[in-house]
């Protein structure tokens, strides 16, 4: 068995025993162990990318390893979460919770490694179902509402994506013949020029709205803030953040196929304007929604919409440099956002409870004076999200905006405005978080979780400003291949 297949199958299969056996603590330990093994497997993919239906191209390798890493650190943070909120769920639901953790992880890896449109679709569908179940776990009225919204919107998205997948097959079938080759990304990209352009355009529209739902691009973003805010925190925030990446990468791959066809005169429309419109809409939507949010998880849900939109915008601009910037942005945002949610969950448990509804910003005031390591780690992660130096996101946003100025100067105005408007609300929350009078000063102690948050942030910093040459070559090779 090749590494990619093993990395995707292990979590999917392990979900079954996790769902049936063990106490919550045992489940959390087993979950951590499984995530560790999965992370090693995703690293093994670099040595042996496999072949056939499930094999990793360079893009898949890179994001697979990122997914494995975030899964591992989230699973570590999850230990503390389980202990802190042991009473919140019954035994059966804790088991289900850990099973869903693994299912989301496995589905993401399958989606990244699949070289088949159908398999990609199945993976994202599985992630949707697992996500829905996870959101509904707390069984409060608002959690059920959120899960229902997620299910309906996600279901519509999945249905649109399937229709788009079939249209893509129909566009490719005359050139590649009936059967599996017409559903393989590598074959489609190689034969891009021979595909039926008008049909491909129609397919792309369906795929854009289908996978765009999963990537939470406006106007299909409605499920995300609710899902982030209502479910048990680690799975619904950090883990479902990973599915955004899978959907965005799927869009990037389809964009590449369509671009190939368009530039070879196959009759397809340019994919750029579609992505630009949705990306910009998401960015501006987040910019105007963020100031009005009081719940931190919902707030950072909207911030995920912003960054998802930015990545889609970068892919829409096109060209190797912009795609490089977009991919880098996705990597850094994933690292920063998962660190932020780790810190946020710790902070909420410190203030009493990590259950949904305990994440209001008002609830977190004065944390900096009370728990200095945790408070400052949370503040650092929040600051990193603004994209101001020394945050790693500065580098990727700089690339995106300079490419925009070069290729489409007029668009840089709304882009810049959106970025600034999204940064201001985050900055406004930093002051009260750090400098309000602490309510119950206690001796602070640094914990491993806080260290992990710092590790994520440092990694994001290092990747942006001192990128290892190996990664640079890998990423620029991917971007050049996809332009």
């Amino acid at each position, binding site marked *: 068995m090749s590494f990619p297949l093993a990395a995707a199958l292990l979590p999917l299969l392990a979900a079954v025993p996790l769902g049936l056996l063990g106490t919550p603590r045992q489940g959390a330990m087993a979950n951590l162990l499984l995530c560790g093994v999965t992370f090693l497997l995703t690293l093994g993919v670099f040595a042996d990318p496999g072949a056939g239906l499930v094999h990793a191209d360079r893009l898949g390798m890179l994001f697979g390893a990122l997914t494995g890493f975030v899964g591992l650190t989230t699973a570590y943070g999850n230990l503390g979460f389980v202990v802190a909120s042991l009473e919140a769920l019954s035994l059966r639901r804790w088991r289900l919770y850990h099973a869903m953790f693994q299912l989301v992880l496995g589905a993401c890896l399958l989606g990244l490694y699949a070289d088949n449109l159908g398999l990609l679709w199945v993976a994202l569908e599985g992630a949707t179902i697992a996500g829905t*179940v996870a959101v509904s776990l707390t069984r409060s009225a608002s959690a059920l509402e959120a899960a229902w919204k997620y299910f309906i919107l996600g279901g519509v998205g999945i249905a649109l994506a399937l229709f788009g997948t079939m249209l893509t097959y129909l566009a490719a079938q005359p050139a590649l013949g009936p059967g599996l080759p017409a559903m393989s990304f590598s074959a489609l990209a190689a034969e891009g020029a021979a595909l039926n352009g008008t049909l491909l355009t129609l397919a792309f529209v369906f795929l854009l709205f289908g996978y765009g739902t999963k990537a939470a691009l406006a106007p299909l973003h409605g499920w995300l803030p609710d899902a982030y805010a209502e479910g048990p925190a680690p799975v619904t925030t950090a883990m479902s953040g990973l599915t955004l990446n899978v959907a965005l990468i799927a869009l990037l791959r389809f964009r590449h196929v369509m671009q190939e066809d368009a530039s070879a005169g196959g009759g397809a429309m340019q994919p750029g304007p579609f992505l630009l419109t949705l990306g910009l809409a998401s960015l501006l939507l987040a910019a105007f929604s963020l100031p009005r949010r009081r719940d931190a998880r*919902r707030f950072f849900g909207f911030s995920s919409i912003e960054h998802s939109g930015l990545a889609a915008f970068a892919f829409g601009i096109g060209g190797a440099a912009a795609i490089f910037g977009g991919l880098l942005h996705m990597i850094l945002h994933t690292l920063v956002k998962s660190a932020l949610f780790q810190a946020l969950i710790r902070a909420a448990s410190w203030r009493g409870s990590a259950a949904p509804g305990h994440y209001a910003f008002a609830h977190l005031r004065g944390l900096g004076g009370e728990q200095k390591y945790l408070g400052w780690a949370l503040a650092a992660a929040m600051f990193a999200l603004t994209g101001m130096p020394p945050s790693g996101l500065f580098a990727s946003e700089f690339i995106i905006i300079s490419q925009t100025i070069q290729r489409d100067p007029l668009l840089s105005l709304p882009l810049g405005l959106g970025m600034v408007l999204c940064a201001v609300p985050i900055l406004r929350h930093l002051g009260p978080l750090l400098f309000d009078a602490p309510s119950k000063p206690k001796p602070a102690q640094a914990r491993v979780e806080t260290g992990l948050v710092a590790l994520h942030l440092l990694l994001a910093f290092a990747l942006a400003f001192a990128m290892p040459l190996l990664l640079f070559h890998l990423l620029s090779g991917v971007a050049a291949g996809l332009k």
Partner: protein
Amino acid sequence: MSLSFSLAHMMGGLMLLCAFALLSQRRLVSMISLYQAEALTLTAAALWQGYAQHSPDLYATALITFAIKAVALPIGLRKMVLRFNLIRAVETVMPIGLAMILGLGLIGIAVLVVLPTTLNEVSLTREDLALSLSVVLLGFLLMAVRRNAVAQVIGFLSTENGLVLAAIGMPGMPFVAEFSVALLVLLAFLVVGVFLFRLREHFDTLDLAGIETIERRGR
């Protein structure tokens, strides 16, 4: 050849008729019956396409469709309706007539979008695609104009039927798609079953009108 065309089109047309009639129904029991009729037509269409394309895979699709969508799901849904005592008519967001006019518009859009873009395809695929896209869009419309959870689920299932109709019309499409659609329906039913049960506990009815609380709390 002409017979295979006209039969396939007739079944697609019947499905579209069922999907359209779903829009006009306010009672859940008759919606379920219409859905069942749609699924039965889909079974027949899959069998016919299997025969016309000489592809035994499609017989399996027909079997899955028949067993799950035409038999198991309607039985489950009817039980649910009886258990929750949902015999009365359900609330709609807009007047039925308006919804049907919108539905007509959607069918027009589907035809106008699909037919010009597929000029090179064989006409069987073209028109099947237009019909199935219409069914898919009507399913979405149904989900949008009903406030009741079961009615929304029926809309979703009708959408799935449209997708399968598109898949069986594709020449040589690998079986993956059909299999996964069947899987989705099963899983969706499981998920939905759990939901409905719990929604009942919390809201006392299956009416989702109270869902706006989340909006207020969030701000």
